[in-house]
C-alpha cells in the first residue's frame, strides 16, 4: 500500500468500522505471554511495580500509607492482646459442647480417664424406691414447660427434610431450651421436696441458674503442651452445704476392679479432634459459690437438637459425661485445692428431646489420661432414656404422651440415691 501522508480518508463506511472493530477485537483476544520477572532481578529482591499503571506513583504512596497503617493497627491489636497480663501464649483445647464427640462415649471416657458402667447401680435404685412422686405431678411439671409457659418469642425457621422447598410460617412460642429448662426446674423441685419430705435429704439445696462453669486441666497424654478447658453453662447448678452428698458410690474394691480395666481404644481417631483451639486469658476455676462452704450435688441442663444435623444418643451422652466431669473437677479444685483427698461423686442430667441422659461421675483421680497412673474414674450412665414424647417446636402439646415413670424413677434415684 502506498504511504499517504496527509490524504484524507475519502469515505468511512460501516463496513470499515466493522472490519476495524473485528481486527481490534481479535487483536485484543490474542493472549500475550505473561511478563516474567527476570531471575537476576528477582534475586536482587527489589520491589517491582506495575509500569502500565497510570497512577503508579500516587498508588505506591497511598498503598504504603494504608499498608503501614493497617500493619500498625494489627500489630497494636496483637501486642495489646499479648501484653495482657493474663494472656496465655500456649493455645488451649476448648470444649464448649458445640461440636459432637466423633466417637461418642468411648472418646469421652478416654478423655476423662473413666470406666463406663451402663445403668445405675442396683443399690442406688433400690435406696430411693420408697420415694413416691405421682404421675400427675410429673405431668404437670412437663406441661408447665410445654404448654403453660406464656413466652412468645420468634422460633427458628422450620426445616422439613422431605418437603425441603416449603417455606413454613414462622411461629412464636417458647424456645425449646427454655421449655426443657422449665421442665428440669420443676422436676428438680419435686425431687428436692420429696427428699426433704422423706428425710432422704438432710439439708436444702442451693440452686444457681445459668451460671458459667469452666475448668482448666493440663498434663497427661493429650494435654501436655496445650491445656484443656472445659466450659459449660448448666441451667441448674445444685449445691449443698452437706458434704455427704458428694460421697462416692464405689468403694475401694470397686475402684481397684475398675483400675484393672483398660480404657477404650478409639484408634484411628484422636480424642482431641473435636475441640476448638484458642488462646485463653483466664485459667482460673469458674464456678458459682466457689468460695462458699458448699459442694456440688449435680448439674442439670438441656440441649436443643439441630434440625438438620441432630446429634446421636452417643454424642449427647459424651457431651453429658464431659460436662459432668467438668463439674466434678470444679468440685475437687474449689477453694484452690490441687489434690483429691477422697473420691467424690457429681451427678449430671441432660434433657434432649424428651430424653434424659443421666450421669453419675465418680472422680477418683485428678490426673489426666496417661500410661503410668493406673487410677481411673468411674462413670455410671443411662443413655437417652425417654421421659415423654415431645412435640416438634412448632406444635402445641396438649397432654403428655408416653410418659415413662421408670425413667423418672431412675432420675429420682440418681438425685437422691445413696449408698448406706
Amino acid at each position, binding site marked *: 500500500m502506498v504511504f499517504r501522508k496527509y490524504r484524507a480518508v475519502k469515505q468511512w463506511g460501516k463496513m470499515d468500522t466493522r472490519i476495524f472493530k473485528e481486527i481490534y477485537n481479535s487483536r485484543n483476544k490474542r493472549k500475550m505471554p505473561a511478563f516474567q520477572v527476570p531471575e537476576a532481578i528477582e534475586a536482587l529482591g527489589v520491589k517491582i511495580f506495575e509500569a502500565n499503571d497510570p497512577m503508579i506513583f500516587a498508588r505506591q504512596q497511598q498503598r504504603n500509607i494504608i499498608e503501614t497503617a493497617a500493619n500498625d493497627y494489627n500489630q497494636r491489636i496483637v501486642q495489646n492482646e499479648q501484653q495482657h497480663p493474663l494472656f496465655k501464649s500456649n493455645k488451649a483445647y476448648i470444649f464448649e459442647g458445640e461440636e459432637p464427640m466423633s466417637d461418642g462415649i468411648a472418646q469421652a471416657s478416654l478423655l476423662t480417664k473413666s470406666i463406663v458402667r451402663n445403668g445405675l447401680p442396683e443399690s442406688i435404685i433400690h435406696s430411693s424406691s420408697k420415694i413416691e412422686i405421682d404421675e400427675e405431678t410429673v405431668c404437670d411439671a412437663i406441661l408447665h414447660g410445654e404448654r403453660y409457659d406464656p413466652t412468645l418469642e420468634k422460633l427458628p425457621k422450620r426445616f422439613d427434610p422431605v418437603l425441603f422447598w416449603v417455606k413454613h410460617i414462622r411461629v412464636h412460642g417458647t424456645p425449646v431450651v427454655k421449655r426443657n429448662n422449665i421442665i428440669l426446674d420443676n422436676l428438680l423441685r419435686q425431687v428436692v421436696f420429696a427428699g426433704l419430705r422423706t428425710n432422704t435429704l438432710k439439708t436444702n439445696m442451693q440452686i444457681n441458674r445459668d451460671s458459667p462453669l469452666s475448668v482448666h486441666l493440663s498434663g497427661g497424654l493429650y494435654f501436655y503442651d496445650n491445656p484443656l478447658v472445659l466450659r459449660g453453662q448448666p441451667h441448674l447448678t445444685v449445691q449443698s452445704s452437706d458434704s455427704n452428698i458428694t460421697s462416692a458410690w464405689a468403694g475401694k474394691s470397686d475402684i481397684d476392679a475398675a483400675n484393672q480395666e483398660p480404657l477404650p481404644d478409639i484408634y484411628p481417631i484422636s480424642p482431641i*479432634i473435636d475441640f476448638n483451639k484458642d488462646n485463653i486469658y483466664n485459667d482460673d476455676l469458674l464456678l458459682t459459690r466457689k468460695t462458699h462452704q458448699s459442694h456440688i450435688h449435680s448439674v442439670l441442663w438441656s440441649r436443643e437438637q439441630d434440625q438438620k444435623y441432630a446429634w446421636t444418643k452417643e454424642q449427647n451422652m459424651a457431651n453429658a459425661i464431659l460436662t459432668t466431669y467438668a463439674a466434678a473437677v470444679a468440685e475437687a479444685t474449689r477453694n484452690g485445692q490441687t489434690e483429691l483427698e477422697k473420691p467424690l461423686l457429681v451427678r449430671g442430667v441432660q434433657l434432649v428431646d424428651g430424653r434424659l441422659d443421666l450421669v453419675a461421675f465418680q472422680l477418683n483421680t485428678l490426673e489426666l489420661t496417661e500410661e503410668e497412673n493406673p487410677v481411673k474414674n468411674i462413670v455410671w450412665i443411662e443413655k437417652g432414656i425417654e421421659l415423654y414424647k415431645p412435640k416438634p417446636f412448632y406444635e402445641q402439646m396438649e397432654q403428655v404422651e408416653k410418659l415413662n415413670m421408670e425413667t423418672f424413677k431412675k432420675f429420682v434415684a440418681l438425685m437422691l440415691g445413696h449408698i448406706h
Partner: protein
Amino acid sequence: MIGTLACEMSALRLATSCSSKILISTRNFPARGTKPLPRHLWDMKDLEEKSGGEYTHKPLRINKLGGRDPETGRKVNQHIGGGVKFDYFMIDFHRRGPSDGISTYDERVLEVRRDPNRTCHIALVAGIEGKRWILATENMKAGDIISTTSHLSENPVIGVEGNAYPIGSLAAGTLINSIERYPTNDSEIFVQAAGAAATIVRHQGDFTVVKLPHKHEFSLHRNCMATVGRLSHADIDNKIYGSAQMHRRFGYKMSSGLFHKKDGYFGRKIRALPPVRQLDTPPTPPPPTQKFTLSKKELSGLHGHAKVHNLLAHGYSTRDYPQ
C-alpha cells in the same frame, strides 16, 4: 493430481498448501459444535471467605451463582438458577499420607450421606488430624477404616477399596476415583461423578496411563494420589426427579423452549480415540486481562511526524482557503 483431488474433497486437506505433497486426513473436521456451558453453581470466592481459606468439615451456607460469571456477573448459563439453597460440604480431594512405606494414615468412616450438591455420596472420616469429607466409594459404610499412603511401592499393589495410593503403585486394571491431575495439593481431580471409575492401564517410567470413564487415556505423574474403588450412588440414573418443578427446586431450569438446530455436538459419533494425553506440568494461570482507554490521537495509529491534528484528515488545514 492427488493434490487437486484432495482439494476438491472437503474431507481431506493438504498441509500448508496444495503444492506440497503431504496428505493429512482431518476426519474430525470441521469443529464439533457448541460445547456445554460452564454451570457456575456456587461462588467459590464466597466459600473461601466463609471458611477463612481453610478446610472445614462443617456445613457451610455459600452463595449460589445462578449461572452467572463470578467475575463479570453476567448470565452465562441460561439453565442454572433459583431453587433451594442447600448446605455445602467442602470435600477434601487430596488424600496424602506418609511416604515411608511402613506407616499409613488411617481414618474411620463416621457417616456416609447424600450430598445435594453433587451426585455421589460423601463420607465423613475422622483420623488423628481431624475430620473431613471425602467422596464415598461403592461399599463404604460407617465404621470402616480406610488408610492412606503416599509410598510408591516397587511391586504393584492390589488396592483395598476406599484406601488412597499413588497411582504409580497400583496394579494395572485397578478401578480408581478422585485422581489428582498433578501431584500437587491444589490440582483438580478426575472422576467424581456417581458410579464412575477410571482404570489403570499401564505404567511408563515416571508416568501412569489411566483410562477415564469416557475411555480417553491420560498419562499422569505416578505420584498423583487416587482412591481405589468405584464411586457410590451408581443407581442415580435410575432415580427420577419426577417433575420439571422438582428440577427447578434443585436449581436446574428448563430449556428455553425455542427450537435450536442441532449441531456437531449432538448425536452419536464414531471417532477414533485421541492419543494418550500427558499431563506433565500444571498450566500457569493466564495473565490478568488489562483494560486501556485510548484517546482519539492514540486511536489514529499515527506516530512521529505523521501524527497530525485530527481535523487535518477531514480537510481542515492551516490554509485560509481551499486549494
